[in-house]
């Protein structure tokens, strides 16, 4: 469940309308031609949480419906991409740089 909300960048309290609007927004940016993987993730997320019944179903049956665990976990990882943090120049310059 969490993975689906993260994929769409929504809170768990999002309404059906918010979920649908976010879905439509995202598939316009991530089309099958430009980013097939992301498109698939977004669509999967939408189908899983698009209405109350779907959400309840996902919460109960995810364990059984996971046919490929590795793929499911990687989907979660892709969904859990960290959010960018707003940093100013001084913080940027002070931050330790990778070697």
């Amino acid at each position, binding site marked *: *469940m*969490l*993975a689906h909300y*993260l994929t769409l960048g929504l809170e768990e309290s999002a309404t059906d309308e918010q979920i649908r609007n976010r879905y439509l927004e995202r598939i316009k940016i991530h089309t099958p031609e430009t980013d097939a993987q992301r498109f698939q993730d977004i669509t999967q997320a939408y189908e899983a949480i698009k209405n*109350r*019944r779907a959400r*309840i*179903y996902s*919460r*109960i*049956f*995810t*364990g*059984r419906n*996971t*046919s490929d*665990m*590795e793929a*499911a*976990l*990687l989907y*979660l*990882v892709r*969904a*859990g*991409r*960290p*959010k*960018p*943090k*707003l*940093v*100013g*120049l*001084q*913080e*940027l*310059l002070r*931050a330790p*740089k*990778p070697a």
Partner: protein
Amino acid sequence: MNAPSAQLMEKGRSLTAAGNYREAIDILKLALKKDETNTEIKTLLFRTYALRETQLRQKGMVKEADVIHAHTLSFRPDVQALSENDLILIMKASPLQEALPSYAEYISSAGPSSEAEHIIASRLLTDPRWDLLDALPDTSPLKRDLCVFRDALKWMNEARWKKALAAMRSVSRTSPIAPLKMLCRAMACFYGKDEDGMNRALSMIPESFPILSVFRRVERLPQNFPVLWEGRQVAEDEIHSLLSDLKTQRLKAAIGKIKQISQALFPPAPQAAVRQILQMIMPMGFSGILDEDVLQELAEALLSEADAAVFMAQYYFLAAEDIFEETADYLNMLDSEFADPSDLRIASSLVLTDAAGQISKRHMADDMYGLSVRTLKSLGIASKDAETALIEMTLKAIELDPENRSAYDLLANLPRSSRKSKQLAEQGLLRMYERFSDDPEPCLALSRLYYEKNAFRQAETMLEAAMKRAPYDERVREYRITGLLHAIERNLQRKKLHIVKQDLEKAVKLSGKNTKPPVAVKQVRFEMEQTGQLPLFGGEIQTEKKDIRSIIATVLSPMLLFDRLKTLALLAAEARPGYGPWDTAKIRQLDAVFRPYAARMKELPSSQIRRLLVPEEDRPPYRMKPKPMISIFLDRQPKILNLLLDEDVLPVLEAMLASGLTKACAKEIRRRQKTAKKPFDHLLAFYSLVIRHITDKTDRNAEPFETIVNQVEDRYRELFRAASRRLSVFAEGRLKAALEHFNFKLLNTGCTCPMCTGRAGEAEFFDPDGFDENGEAFFPNIFDGLGELPWGEGNPLKSAISDIEQLVDEMGLRGAPEKIIRKRRRELYNNFQIRMVLEMFADLMPDEMKPLLSREARMLVWV
């Protein structure tokens, strides 16, 4: 030491070039001592000291660097003698207040230095001493862009990169603050999720801009730059490593990794990520990679006690082993997952529906016997009958959530042989009919039910309702037509031809691709029965009955060859003397029409010929037995099989076996084997071998089967497995078992258990009346194939009790907790042979003898 100063100077120069500044300084000082007025040596010393100072500062040796700095300054040549490199050395080594005057002097003689300007701009980022810039002449490009620089820096420090970029719009490419503009662009692109744009901008920051050039060197920025993110990106390798730890049972490592990954994925609430990960690895428990106890250990280590209990209840429910109890347990815990009452109702409904579906699919309904009243109540079960119980569960699901469409769909397809179960199903389907008022599906489901009850009028009313709801739905039309055909047949037999006429006209109007031939058959029957007073579709009234040949010709005329042949075959199938209008003469006339058409079958492709010989069995609203089409066509066209391709012949061969045409089937196989290609050559050999075994023309032996199967390529193995299963219906005993399981070693075994003798599906495996008095024969025979279980002597049931108790001890279950015994029972019951024996024992054991068994034994046998 005695070398001349020029030589020492050269040595000093090469040591400097090699980076050996300390030694170079010593050599150059010596050289200077020998030639104190040599300005070249002084300049060299200055450079070497400056480089040494830079080196010390880079190492963090600030005090030492400050000491060297004094020497650097003491040897600083006049500005006019300074090269740009010397200037850069001074500026890099000196604080801003010292560097700027040197640069100011330099500019006035040599003009601006872009590298020096970069150094100054870079210093101002962290130490904005704008006042110091007054020392610079107006020819300094930095001074020209000073206002823009100050504004932009303010926005950059506030993280308002777009605003900073806008402020720097007028900055040219050659400006000393152009690299800052690139940084602003890179950051604006980063926040705008334009990674390509960001990388392009970063690549334009020159190396000479000291601080910012670090960003350019950072590979795969920004993933490797943690300050830019809330949390961190989890790498794919971490997932692979976690899965590996789980597969190899390295639990402690796995727990640690799950915690780390969850924290990275969702810092505000890592527990949500933990639950998600645990759900995603549940399949490891289902497939046995992870033991349930291990999964429980994981859940208890990672979740709260309450959450771990809910997780495990959900796991057991999804694993669906002791499905009744585990469903009831999970239902009782759902309120902790779904606090909202209406969500809880929906969730409960979905759980019940799923459980009922699983029980039905896996034929586990009989597991309900022995359940507690509490469990039955949770599941909505009041009946003692398994079939009715499933319907009650589904009705409860519907009651909890009347919008649960899957519950209705399940209800429509659950088995219902008793009056009670039909009644209950009808109640639920009527609810569906009311609730989904635009949907034809409940109408179709109810029509099927009414046909089962022989309530034809109600069935037809429902079919009419379906047509009203979905007049263009092909499936609905087929249902309607089949219902009409059924009514037509009834009314033809009752000679109610005026009703037949009405229904026939409706059927003809509705008929489609699959239904033309059966409708045409009824047209022919009608025309044969009626005297011409009831023309179809308002046609001309005839004064006498038509000749059957002209009737058939009229009915067939609009049809294609395939449909004509199908119609004729259907007519031939029903035509027997005394049935309806058929007599010997009419049957002969029908045959006279049929044979020329049969001769034209070669005009059809192989796949269509197959469809004629082996028509579809399922036809809504009820299943019909297959008519012997194959015999009908073979009688009229004996060489018809020659027209079939190998890929179309298998279902035909099976239909021949089903029709008892075993010899003809064997003959056809032999004919085809001469020319068949892979994989059909082996397949036909397989079929031939099965037929020889069925007809007892060969000894029962695994070897010939295994010889064939071992020659088959892997990609065709599934084809053989499927064919073997289909052929098992024609076999009995060990051959049946061997074909069902695709395991031909069973042909050689002496075991008499149900699996090995192919009697596993039989309801009455054991006939108590056939039980011999001694009793030893029964249990030894049963346990024979198991090997590991001993058998006793004396009273058969008492000795069986002793055997069961011994089993309990051997499994180490004496005194074990209920959960463990249930788990071991599940494992035991996965072995079909053991399951059959124990279930038989459970059935035979009278109630008064049950207390003779220990607690553990009772739990093993009766749950």
